[in-house]
């Protein structure tokens, strides 16, 4: 296939139309939808509003709740280990605080637990891959916080609640927005290089569904910059972290408290027993379950292990029926399909367009509405652009950014995006880029209170594994704030709890009990969880693979 500056001829024809309408669009103003119009497009076109792709949970503390079928399969599955396989009397690590997950929430929890007075030697972080490998590091666009003169936490509160379809837990939203400014100040004090004007004023922009410009960024490497700094801080505090060793089951004690976990070395296949006075669950979300077969922006390890493990201990889940599809995943070229195109591209002025170069939706609707509008354009009204592999997408007119904001802005503020496309010979300063919604975020999760405590004694949680903060839809920039606020709060709460707690006899009986419930409900025995890593090996290979270890 012949490509002209990255695009085949068929797509070039459409790009010419985009170029022709650009002058006109630069002057036009496009209105946002009313709440009624939003509901209409969501009901008709959002993948999450199809009832047939979900089912009710048949066992456990959230029995009867509606969740995506892929999540139900994971939750209604049997443990990888049973009581008789594992010797939990032989303790490998005996600590005050166990943190499961090495992304943003886990790292913040460790730092703040140490600040709270727990000796770093009495903390253990365990991660599936390397410390820092997480969705947190991949976040691009920014972090919200109401710290400008025309803004206030109560205004941020209203945006979060409205964006979340008024289903959020008000206490959690209050905690999120109220801690925002102090979190930004803390990051700044730790040396995060936020985008600033010369006098130190933060450069802030809009995200979808925000009523004030409160998106703070560090180019389009915001997540990476934040995580690099907190990981550096975590290492400076000498907190131990065990890598390549995911937790595969939580341990409880005979008093009904969560009391540590069983870890699994994914290379040597050895298990370790951790006894802990308090445990923070920070395992992230479910992107790699590929809900409804969608591609995902998520990290390799995002397989919702924490949900499955916490559920077996009796932790309730909430808002799991709601899945976030990011409107702008890459739709071309094939090699990067599904990867994230940050919302900041639209925040800086790029418009979504149909194949004729016409705008069909306001660029900054909340994510679910924007996604539904894109799907409608591609599969409802036939305005999508077809790629050589038959995929549909809509244009995101990125050249507008430099036209509006000045020459060089794209390369400077979106260097990751610019680099990603340049690797495939596409220059997003000269040509638009093609996008389609991609699976992005687990809106719901484990129920917590404003201090990051779950309903199970000894178990705390923060970040994407939890539910309630974002209701049924998360706004851009609130996940980095979420992990910062609730990672911190969970770390502090867990530290305070650990100082007083005493652990009884360790047990895995909760796992046995849950398995019995599953058997009664008729769940097939072949289902096991956690998944740990998704399977991407070729079918030909797997058909002749044998497991002899």
């Amino acid at each position, binding site marked *: 296939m012949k490509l002209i500056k990255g695009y085949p001829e068929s797509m070039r024809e459409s790009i010419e139309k985009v170029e022709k309408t650009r002058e006109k669009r630069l002057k036009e103003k496009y209105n946002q939808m*009313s*709440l009624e119009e939003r509901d209409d497009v969501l009901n008709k076109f959002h993948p999450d509003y199809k009832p047939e792709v979900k089912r009710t949970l048949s066992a456990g503390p959230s029995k009867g709740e509606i969740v995506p079928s892929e999540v139900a399969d994971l939750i209604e599955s049997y443990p990888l280990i049973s009581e008789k396989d594992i010797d939990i009397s032989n303790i490998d690590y005996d600590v005050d605080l166990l943190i499961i997950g090495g992304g943003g929430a886990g790292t913040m929890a460790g730092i703040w637990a140490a600040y709270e007075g727990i000796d770093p030697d009495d903390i253990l972080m365990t991660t599936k*891959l*390397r410390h820092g*490998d997480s969705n947190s*590091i*991949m976040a691009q666009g920014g972090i919200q916080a*109401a*710290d400008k*003169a025309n803004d206030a*936490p*109560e*205004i941020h*509160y*209203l*945006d979060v*609640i*409205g964006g979340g379809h*008024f289903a959020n837990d*008000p206490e959690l939203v*209050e905690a999120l*927005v*109220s801690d925002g*400014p102090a979190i*930004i*100040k803390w990051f*700044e004090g*730790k*040396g995060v*290089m936020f985008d*600033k004007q010369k006098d*130190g*004023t*933060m450069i802030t922009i809009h995200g979808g569904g925000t*009523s004030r410009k409160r998106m703070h960024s560090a180019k389009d*490497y915001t*997540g*990476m*910059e934040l995580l690099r*700094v907190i990981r*550096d*801080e975590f290492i*400076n505090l*000498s907190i131990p972290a065990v890598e*390549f060793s995911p937790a595969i089951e939580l341990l409880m004690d005979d008093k009904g408290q969560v009391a540590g976990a069983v870890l699994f070395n994914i*290379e040597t296949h050895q298990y370790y027993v951790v006894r802990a006075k308090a445990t923070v669950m920070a395992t992230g979300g479910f992107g790699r379950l590929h809900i409804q077969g969608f591609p995902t922006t998520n*990290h*390799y390890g995002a397989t919702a292990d924490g949900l499955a493990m916490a559920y077996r201990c009796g932790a309730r889940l909430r808002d799991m029926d709601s899945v976030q599809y990011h409107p702008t995943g890459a739709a071309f*070229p094939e*090699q990067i399909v599904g990867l*994230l195109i940050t919302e900041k591209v639209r925040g800086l002025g790029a418009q979504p367009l149909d194949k004729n170069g016409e705008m069909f939706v306001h660029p900054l609707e909340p994510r679910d509405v924007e996604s539904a509008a894109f799907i409608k354009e591609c599969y409802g009204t036939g305005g999508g652009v077809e790629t050589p592999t038959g995929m549909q997408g809509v244009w995101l007119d990125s050249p507008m950014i430099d036209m509006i904001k000045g020459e060089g802005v794209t390369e400077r503020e979106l*260097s*990751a995006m610019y*680099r990603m496309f340049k*690797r495939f010979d596409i220059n997003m300063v000269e040509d638009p880029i093609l996008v389609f919604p991609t699976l992005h975020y687990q809106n719901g999760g484990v129920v917590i209170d404003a201090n990051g405590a779950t309903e199970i004694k000894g178990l705390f949680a923060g970040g994407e594994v939890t539910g309630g903060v974002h209701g049924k839809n998360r706004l851009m920039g609130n996940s980095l704030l979420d992990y910062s606020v609730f990672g911190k709060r969970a770390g502090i709460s867990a530290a305070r709890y650990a100082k007083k707690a005493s652990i009884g006899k360790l047990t895995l009986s909760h796992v046995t009990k849950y398995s019995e419930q599953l058997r009664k409900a008729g769940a097939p025995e072949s289902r096991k969880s956690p998944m740990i890593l998704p*399977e*991407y*090996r*070729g079918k030909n*290979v797997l058909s002749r693979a044998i497991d002899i270890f």
Partner: protein
Amino acid sequence: MGKEYRIPSGLTLMKAMEYAGYRYTRGAGCRAGFCGACATIYRLKDDYKLKSALACQTTVDDGMYLVQLPFTPANKKKYDMENLNIAHNALLKEYPEIARCISCNSCTKVCPQELKVMDYVQASLRGDIEKAADLSFDCVQCGLCAFRCPAEITQYHVGQLARRLNGKFVTPKALHTEEAVVKLNSGVSKQEISKLKVLKLDEIKELYKKRSIE
């Protein structure tokens, strides 16, 4: 790896390895060019040059012969940010080995992000924190620079410290953030949010609809 595989063209190195049957435990992270877990070095047929890439961001080529370096052993200095002295080149003090740089430019050549690594090491040596921070900003910490460096410098850790020093000591503080924290402590927002929290669904929907967008 000593074995020959036939792979559909257009696949990234990472997807090609999986197509061939390898399951990643090390050497894969975000799969999107942000985490630096999949640093790869390779040679092409009949080419003496050793090349480098991120496996998730580079497509396969005929005769490609590769190995992945999921990490490069590198010691990170531990420091307390509050006690670093930028007037006396904290970078050189924490990482004195930067003085061993022989300006061979191997680090720059190997960087999959196309950063001017040698230039930021030289800036660090001069104590030019701002320049070192700026030039190293897009670093994904894959470690390829440290792997190639004949002077045993761990460039990506030096860049990390430069950025933190820059963010903390060189760039002016955001006064509005400071003011927002002070204002929050006054309790006004807490009162306003308390009012919002008790509103009925219809009432808060109305407020949301009417909110001004600036």
